[in-house]
């Protein structure tokens, strides 16, 4: 049985849909805008599914991410889902999520989607401020967001997540608060509020490196973080991970929790990562390589690694400190012994606290999760 906070120890299945209509300048996920390869990608995906057939017990989450899964036509989407259900055992109460772009979903698409097992939709709203959306290079506007949420609700979706971004260059706290308020009015079951992070490989990241883009300073970013957390908790949302909020415990993202809890997951599609026991492996971030490898009956692996106990320990600490479930307070092996001083100071300073035998980060602690992981 799935406990209240929607965590489980069964494996999760991730499918990477590496296609977007346009590429957002800050985005670091692997995707291409040429969608002509979708049919052969589907074929390859089904071959990859066959590679892993029988290797996993049944999955209790399926997550269609990307990229933009909502660029798939109903038939294409059906082919992907059918493939997964044919190759794997998928539990009846499975959480099946699709990421969608506002504007991509219309009534026809939704009436089709209602007949699939997809029971959770995560909408890439990003902002309700059109200036911010334009700056981010999104192809939708705030009106598209509203329309999409309305459509989703009307078609009966009762598990919706919204993605939002803050600390965008030029974005004021006021603009962000307006976006937050509007988001709250829709009463989504789940909210992801990400601080904009610029990676060097992206166009915006390059402009940042060249000094042409200025990000808000640490104090401002801290204010965004705290304001968000306080405001959402006021409305009863649970700040259960650095960037994630659930309206109730049961609305935590069961799938994402697996990443943070060292639960097995299988990732399919270009650039997808997998984890099992002490092994990680991941696929080439290239649609062509992915397709041709599978056409030649090769696994499209980019790399694999075995984690040592030390690696696992470090991961448990830094992943654990990202969530309000924290880390096992009674497992001395988790800490460097010299860190005890720091641990005590963090507890005294209210960055960490003891709860039910665990050491968990407070709100301020979450804002410093990486530092904590380095020090502990």
């Amino acid at each position, binding site marked *: 049985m799935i406990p209240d906070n929607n965590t489980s120890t069964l494996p999760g299945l991730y499918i990477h849909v590496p296609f977007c209509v346009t590429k957002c300048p800050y985005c670091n996920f692997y995707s291409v805008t040429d969608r002509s390869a979708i049919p052969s990608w589907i074929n390859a995906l089904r071959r990859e599914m066959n590679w892993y057939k029988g290797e996993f017990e049944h999955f209790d989450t399926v997550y269609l991410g990307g990229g933009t899964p909502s660029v798939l036509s109903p038939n294409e989407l059906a082919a992907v889902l059918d493939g997964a259900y044919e190759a794997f055992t998928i539990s009846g109460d499975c959480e099946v999520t699709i990421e969608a772009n506002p504007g991509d979903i219309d009534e026809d698409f939704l009436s089709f989607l209602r007949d699939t097992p997809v029971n959770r939709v995560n909408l890439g709203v990003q902002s309700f401020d059109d200036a911010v959306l334009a700056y981010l290079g999104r192809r939708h506007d705030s009106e598209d967001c509203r329309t999409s949420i309305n459509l989703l609700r009307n078609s009966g979706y009762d598990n919706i997540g919204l993605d939002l971004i803050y600390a965008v260059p030029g974005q004021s706290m006021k603009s962000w608060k307006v976006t937050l308020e509007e988001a709250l009015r829709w009463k989504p079951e789940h909210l992801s509020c*990400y601080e904009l992070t610029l990676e060097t490989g992206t166009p915006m990241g390059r402009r940042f490196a060249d000094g042409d883009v200025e990000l808000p300073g640490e104090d401002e*970013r*801290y204010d965004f973080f705290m304001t968000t957390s306080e405001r959402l908790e006021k409305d009863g949302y649970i700040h259960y991970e650095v960037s994630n909020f659930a309206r109730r415990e049961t609305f935590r993202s069961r799938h994402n929790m697996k990443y943070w809890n060292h639960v097995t997951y299988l*990732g399919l599609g270009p650039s*997808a990562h997998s984890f099992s026991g002490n092994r990680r492996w991941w696929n080439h971030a290239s649609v062509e390589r992915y397709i041709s490898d599978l056409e030649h009956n090769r696994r499209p692996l980019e790399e694999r*690694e075995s984690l040592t106990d030390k*690696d696992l320990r*470090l*991961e448990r600490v830094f992943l654990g400190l990202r969530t309000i479930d924290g880390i096992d307070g009674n497992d001395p092996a988790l800490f460097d012994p010299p860190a005890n*001083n720091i641990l005590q100071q963090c507890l005294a300073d209210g960055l960490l606290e003891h709860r039910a035998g665990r050491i968990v980060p407070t709100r301020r602690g979450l804002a410093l999760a990486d530092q904590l992981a380095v020090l502990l």
Partner: protein
Amino acid sequence: MDSIRNFSIIAHIDHGKSTLADRMIQLAGLTNSRTFRDQILDTMDIERERGITIKSQAITLPYRAQDGGTYYLNLIDTPGHVDFSYEVSRSLASCEGVVLLVDAAQGVQAQTLANLYLAMEHDLEIIPVINKIDLPAADTERVMEQIENELGLDPFGSILCSAKEGTGVPDIMEAIVQRIPPPRGDAGKPLSALIFDAQYDAFRGTVVFCRVFDGIMKAGQAVRFMHNDTVYRVEEVGRFSLVREKKEQLEAGDVGYLIAGIKNVADVSVGDTITDDHRPCAAPLPGFKEAKPVVFASIYPIASDDYEELVVALEKYKLNDASFTYQKDSSVALGQGFRCGFLGLLHLDIVQERLEREYDLSIILSVPSVRYRFILKNGETVYIENPAHYPESMSIEKAEEPYIRATMMFPEQYLGAVMKLCIDRRGENSHINYPSPERVELQFELPLSSVIYDFYDSLKSLTQGYGSFDYDIIDYRESDLVLLDILVNGEKVDALSQIVNRAVARERALNTCERLKEEIPRQMFKIAIQGAVGGEIIARTTISAFRKDVTAKCYGGDITRKRKLLEKQKKGKKRMKMVGSVSIPQSAFVSVLKSDKG
């Protein structure tokens, strides 16, 4: 004995001593140029890199002179830095003459003079050589004048030379034979030999370098080191060409080495006299002084696991450096370590660098200190060089600190600036000489504590590189001393405690706090840095806390990348020292050490 000449090359640093030595070695045919390494006498890496000679060595150069005779020229190399002036004086005591090298562009400098005076004290024949005449900036006329007026030597006896190109080098060899007298001495008398250096050899133990004045030394003989009062049986004697060359015996006038199963270099004192145990000489040779450390600092490993390694490294290091001292010390903030004594700051730098480089250790040095003298109310006199042992202030009758006489030379235009520097450093009793119209020789009495840090660097930069500096320790003088403590988040970092004159305590405290603020990275907590004297806070700064440090997204694929990033950061943390819950990087300790002034 008539075919032997014992000489040294003396010069201000960088005037070309090592280069000239190389040329002479080549000319003597000890090496062909294919196997020749530049600056062959400077065997240690650091000496090569810094271009200074730390340990003196000796080498015998066979030379066929114009008179047709074959001579053996014993070149005794000397260290070229003020920290090592005692060792220089012992080397000079082993010679009958010196080659005094002056840079043709720079002219006479403070150490040219200091070295000349040393040579004169030993009654040595002096051959002035003007080096680097190949330089476009060479001004031999001016240097000739300086040699006459400032050094009081006959300028027409000087030889023009370019050690780099080799011009003039045969003339120097010839002058050594013609002008430096052969050693005198009596091989029939009881043995007396002067130790001027010692080096450690992993296979043979300590190799002692000495000059035999009277008598004979050979294998099998029982010799006594008079000052240390130890007796050894001689295993081997010989001289150095490029390698050790075993000989039947060393006799009066010879310079050579001795191997006698001596375990540690520390068992040998430079300046000691070797004699025959059964037939001793009447008295030891004059001028013995124990090389006493004047600067002290504690050394701690950054990671306390490295303590054992530090112990081994210090033992090994000590084998080859008799003037370095160390004893156990412990710090509340930094754990187990050692209190070490050095001849000066350069010596300290060298030791630190060698420990880090040759033994791959990461160490932290406490703030260096001189040795203070306290006369207590109960009449006792104590010497304190470790702030941790600072006496109870109620018990102090009188506090004193060591003073030096500094001699500086520089072009006249910098006089004002240098005067100000010296006065700022609590200098007194100045003396100005004008050895020549546009040059100044300035003497000042200064607290040693005010020059051990960056005095020489400041002098150099004030005089645009033309200033030179030399010093002697003269006496102890009364000083209003206080103990300055540095607190990080209320916790005393005892390695940063300093004994200072009350007049400069506040400035020093502020300076230290600012330095630490620059070097300690922001952390999760606010960090208060304070300077305190006797419980009273006299300086403070704070480092504001980090508030946001977390990656927004951490999904599937990110985890490996993220872990590797954190591993790297964790490694960086390991190189920091934890004081309470604050991580202090090694650079913070170093910056305090480098920046202080008295």
